[in-house]
């Protein structure tokens, strides 16, 4: 199994989730994060005090899938999250040792 971590633009979340569901992904964890990268942030000025906000709002997806599904998931995210503008995001893949479903105690691929 692999853990796929993807940072994407927030307004793409629904689209990506739907696309992933349609290829058989059955679960994920979604976190609102502040992204730092080549996409620059913005400046806010409050009565003369200037604050450079270097972070850009992003959404992080964490998805554990069986090895066989990894490429398809990558493809799907690449296609749906893309706007061709800077800041579209990154995807990382890590190895997962074990997975367990709390409710049933099922493990590994059965738990996904």
């Amino acid at each position, binding site marked *: 199994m692999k853990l796929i971590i993807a940072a994407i633009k927030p307004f793409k979340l629904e689209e990506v989730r739907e696309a992933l569901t349609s290829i058989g992904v059955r679960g994920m964890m979604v976190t609102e994060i502040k992204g730092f990268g080549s996409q620059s942030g913005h400046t*806010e*000025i*409050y*009565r*003369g*005090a200037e*604050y450079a*906000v270097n972070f850009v709002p992003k959404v992080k997806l964490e998805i554990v899938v069986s090895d066989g599904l990894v490429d398809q998931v990558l493809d799907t995210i690449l296609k749906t999250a893309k706007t061709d503008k800077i800041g579209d995001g990154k995807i990382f893949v890590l190895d997962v040792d074990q997975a367990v479903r709390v409710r049933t105690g099922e493990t590994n691929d059965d738990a996904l």
Partner: protein
Amino acid sequence: MANFRKISGLAALASAAALPALADTAPAVANSGDTAWMMTSSALVLFMTVPGLALFYGGLVRTKNMLSVLMQCTLITALVMVIWVFWGYSMAFGGGPSPYWGGFGKLALAGVTKDSVSGTIPEYVFSVFQMTFAAITPALIIGSFAERIKFSALLLFIALWSTLVYFPIAHMVWDSTGLFFKMGAMDFAGGTVVHINAGIAAFVGCLMIGKRIGFGKDNMAPHSMTLTMVGASILWVGWFGFNAGSALAANGTAGLAMINTFVATAAAILSWSAVEGMARGKASMLGAASGMVAGLVAITPACGFVGPVGAVVLGLVVSPICYFFVTTVKSSFGYDDSLDVFGVHCIGGITGALLTGIFASTAFGGVGYPDGQTMMGQEIVQIEAVLTTIIWSGVVSAILYKLVDMVLGLRVEADAEREGLDLSSHGEAAYHS
């Protein structure tokens, strides 16, 4: 307030006309319409303080200090009101002959009953109205050293400051035996006694307490501009009690004060937004809220004396001046007046006090000067009143800060400041999800 009567004899005309005979022959009885308006006004001025000012200031600080600001406004209000009953009212309006204070004749409201009348309203109502002014003025101060003051030290300072600065200056301005009153200073609703007074005390405070940790480096953006806007709006709404209430009656002068409080504020919102639009390409909500308050501050001394067009001009003028102070001046000198009490209240108050002397002229649609006074002469009086206030309040405040610092320490520990005053001083957090 009361003093507009003396100054020109114009202001009180409408209401005075209503009961001339009565006043001499029968025991004074309160006028129900004036009483209704003054009770409404008193409630409005409380509304300005809690939650108005508390939200305006609270929205501007970081989440971790939100409750500290709310607590400071609330406890100052409570403390000053209790003091007011025991010695504040007497020190300001006790009936003594001194130009500097009212004496001890009305300690604990001695002699005031529900049948006592002051002008055309019950004396209790007059006292209550004045009490709300006494409560909001020190609450204004806290903005300059928000996010780092020690709570107990603040309360001690305010108790002393009210006693030694506010009550005397209120007496000087509004009591008929008061120093400025006799000089003929025109201050309809408290530009000097409230805004310049609090503004200079705040300025001295932030200098003596020092900058916040991380000032100029950390992101100290307002935690809720929404709440700041709500607070500013409540200030505007409540300010009609403050300004039109200062006519002490529901009459044409109150109406004049009201329309001026509307339109000067509107103009100041527009001009602050315009300046921002030119300076950074965008008009911000904080800018509009700041313009709102600046306009309200500036029209305060003027509202019963100038005409509506003069009020609009006053509003248009005050915002760029305050803007210059809260941006350029503050950053050049590098003091940390957290919420710009000096730049908005003191500078806005001075602008208003000085322009009152000009726009009150009938030439500019104002109600004119006291008999025999010229514009130049009036301006000199205005300047004297402003300077006296700045010096009195500045010097006494400095001494009191020093004193309190020696007794209790003015500032919290660095760790407590970093954790935020809500947890470290009050043991709670403003928000939980």
